């Protein structure tokens, strides 16, 4: 019954989306207020129904209902509770249902909470959101039904990919999707504004919190995914330039550009057409990413099922929505008037530089990701990997960091170059100091890119807190704090990346129990190896006692064996200290009773993810700060009126 109820909820939601689309556009076209009055309730009901459908699928997974095909192919009754729950979205159909749910709930949120937007634009936005939702409802219902039954039900399921059986599965995909799909709101806003010809500062102020919210979640999702890959895959790397990772990076790059340009539009009423374009591109990148991941043209842990029919379906949706939005853009953009002009030396210029560089990086990542697919269509197999992305995107990203350091220190509209230079004195001095000290401390051990990265990280760190200089910190607006913290996060993250690639010490040994290994100031005593058992796995576990002069700590790298599906995974042991992480992986047994141990000491590697969290925190402060200011102003106005 539960599965049928879920399917019914989905069909109802799809019907409501169709109704919502019709009501919004018929109402706007004919100026019929009574039709428009039903748009918001329709959006809210749609959000509730998708949430119900998703909740029902979770229920089926938790109950291990083996009469449902999806549960059979992706779950197992012996699996721990957490993975039954999170396994709901650890597969193609479930993750697409999550996609549709986020879209429905985001639409409901726009219907309920958006107050700043002009009414007709608001209605057109909800119509746009319904239009994009419809395509994904169709995809779900016609080619990826998560509620399909299987008859007769098998005694038990096939289990979940053990690489996904990790607490990370409960956090990373939902957060990433909230951000990824949350960008659909920005897309719908752009459609709405183009339709009602309202591309102005008021529109940008209304759109900004939605972009910010999606961007915060996307940042958190990517950060979590990076850390998960780092400890789960056991390769000690934090970013692999895997096409699937690029699929999440591309919307983030576009959303970051959008976040900055929407601020220019909101504050200075400039960059009108460009901001609308970016709003379209950001969600288009989410859809391109989904196409790459879900179509089966890539194989990775993220590509669950290979099915060419689904690929063509998503490709068709992609063509319709992106093509449609660009056509609307081309048709209406002539009627968007030029925004306010600005001088060459102004914050606007720096933000334009930010946008151009982010777009360039986006273009490079997009080309690098699609190129192997294009050549394969012509019969050549190539792979594009880290050497390409590091060589090309690395230097541009560092240039972008310099713009990031400068931008907040330049005034809006017009500034004097000499004054800007003066404000940059301290960061510049820090850069020189950092150059000299890094050169003295690490000359010959550090590559050119990490060297520049480290120096720039220090300079950006100093520059990012400079806007707080000589200010009353308590009276500084929350959104200024947000910008400062987010920019500081970039510096922190960059420092972590540079330290990790420059100073990581790696050691690979074959050791007998009782042996002691010395590396990077650490002493590791291989105590013993023993079998242990978990809920649905057995493992060989090494007990390794580690110390570097203080009290010894016992850590436990494991090699786990899962029975369903039969797979071995290695669980790295991580020991976090303030200045880095010790990362130990257990390998296989070799002759002479020895075991392979791979040991890394990674100085300051944790800064990479700490930076990511700071960036998201900065975004959250900015969001709360702006919203609170809006509430305060409204409240004061109401009181003055009374």
């Amino acid at each position, binding site marked *: 019954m539960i599965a049928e109820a879920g399917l019914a909820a989905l069909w109802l939601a799809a019907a409501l989306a169709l109704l919502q689309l019709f009501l919004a556009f018929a109402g706007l076209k004919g100026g019929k207020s009574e039709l428009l009055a039903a748009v918001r309730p329709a959006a809210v009901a749609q959000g509730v129904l998708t949430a119900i459908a998703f909740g029902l699928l979770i229920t089926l997974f938790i109950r291990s209902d083996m009469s449902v095909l999806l549960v059979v192919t992706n779950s197992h009754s012996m699996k721990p509770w957490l993975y039954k729950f999170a396994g709901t979205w650890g597969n193609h159909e479930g993750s697409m249902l999550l996609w549709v749910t986020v879209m429905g709930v985001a639409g409901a949120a726009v219907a309920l909470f958006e107050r700043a937007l002009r009414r007709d634009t608001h209605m057109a936005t909800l119509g746009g959101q319904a239009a994009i939702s419809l395509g994904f409802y169709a995809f779900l219902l016609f080619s990826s039904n998560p509620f399909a039954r299987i008859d007769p039900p098998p005694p038990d399921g096939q289990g979940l*990919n053990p690489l996904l059986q990790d607490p990370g599965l409960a956090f990373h995909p939902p957060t990433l999707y909230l951000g990824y799909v949350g960008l659909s709101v920005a897309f719908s806003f752009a459609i709405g504004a183009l339709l009602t010809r309202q591309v102005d500062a008021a529109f940008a102020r209304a759109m900004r919190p939605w972009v910010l919210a999606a961007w915060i979640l996307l940042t958190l999702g990517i950060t979590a995914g990076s850390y998960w890959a780092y400890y789960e895959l056991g390769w000690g790397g934090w970013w692999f330039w895997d096409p699937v990772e690029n699929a999440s990076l591309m919307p983030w790059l576009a959303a970051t550009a959008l976040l900055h340009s929407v601020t220019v539009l909101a504050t200075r009423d400039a*960059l009108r057409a460009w901001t609308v374009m970016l709003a379209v591109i950001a969600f288009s990148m989410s859809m391109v990413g989904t196409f790459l991941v879900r179509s089966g043209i890539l194989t990775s842990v993220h590509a669950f099922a290979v099915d060419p029919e689904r690929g063509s379906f998503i490709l068709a949706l992609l063509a319709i929505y992106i093509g449609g939005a660009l056509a609307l853009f081309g048709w209406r953009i002539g009627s968007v008037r030029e925004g306010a002009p600005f001088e060459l030396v102004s914050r606007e210029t720096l933000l334009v530089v930010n946008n151009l560089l982010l777009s360039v990086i986006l273009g490079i990542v997009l080309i*690098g990701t699609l190129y192997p697919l294009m050549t394969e269509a012509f019969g050549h197999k*190539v792979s594009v990997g880290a050497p*390409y992305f590091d060589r090309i995107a690395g230097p541009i990203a560092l240039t972008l960091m310099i713009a990031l350091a400068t931008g907040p220190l330049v005034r809006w509209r017009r500034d004097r170059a000499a004054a800007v230079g003066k404000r940059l004195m301290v960061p510049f001095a820090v850069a020189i100091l950092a150059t000299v000290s890094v050169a003295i401390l690490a000359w010959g051990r550090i590559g050119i890119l990490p060297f520049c990265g480290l120096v720039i990280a220090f300079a950006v760190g100093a520059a990012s807190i400079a806007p707080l200089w000589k200010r009353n910190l308590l009276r500084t607006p929350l959104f200024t704090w947000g910008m400062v913290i987010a920019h500081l996060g970039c510096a922190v993250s960059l420092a972590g990346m540079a330290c990790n690639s420059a100073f990581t010490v790696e050691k*690979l*040994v074959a050791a007998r129990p009782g042996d002691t290994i010395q590396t990077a100031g650490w002493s590791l005593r291989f105590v013993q190896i023993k079998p242990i058992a978990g809920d649905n796995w057995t493992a060989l576990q090494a007990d390794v006692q580690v110390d570097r002069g203080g009290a010894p700590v016992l850590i436990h790298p494991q090699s786990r064996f899962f029975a369903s599906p039969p797979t071995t995974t290695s669980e790295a042991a991580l020991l976090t200290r303030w200045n880095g992480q010790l990362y130990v992986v257990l*390998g296989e047994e070799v002759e002479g009773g020895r075991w392979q141990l791979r040991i890394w000491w990674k100085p300051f590697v944790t800064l990479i993810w700490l930076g990511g969290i700071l960036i998201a925190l900065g975004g959250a402060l900015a969001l709360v700060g702006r919203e609170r200011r809006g509430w305060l102003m409204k409240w004061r106005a109401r009181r003055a009126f009374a």
Partner: protein
Amino acid sequence: MKAKHQRLILALAALAAIIGAGLLAVSALKDEAAYFYAPNDVKTKGVEPGKAIRLGGMVVKGSLKRAANGVTIRFDVTDGKATVPATFSGIAPDLFKEGSGVVAEGAFDGKGTFVATNLLAKHDERYMPRELEGMSYNETTHEMKAER
């Protein structure tokens, strides 16, 4: 400056940036995209030592040997037409074994041995490095087939 002129300048800057990105990407791809080699490509085209590439093929049966230090392995990679010797120091993936597919990341040393820094094998039955699709190995005849 008039708003109209400024808009034109901005549009041109954006266009220049996008074209610049495209050119940069294409020029880099020329160098890096030939990044995947099968042993026969190595034989016919040649790869300069030290250049980071991916080498893909099947691990030849009976070629896998472990050095006395317990951490270095030697094996041969074949695509049926040519065979390349390779070494790897590290923990090999669980599904890395003789007669199965592998993609090795690394570079050639001066003597024609491929020094792998990373091995990508199948994660599980469902996951296969994309470059190895269409390759198969016959267990009995030791024959490699590659549809490329």
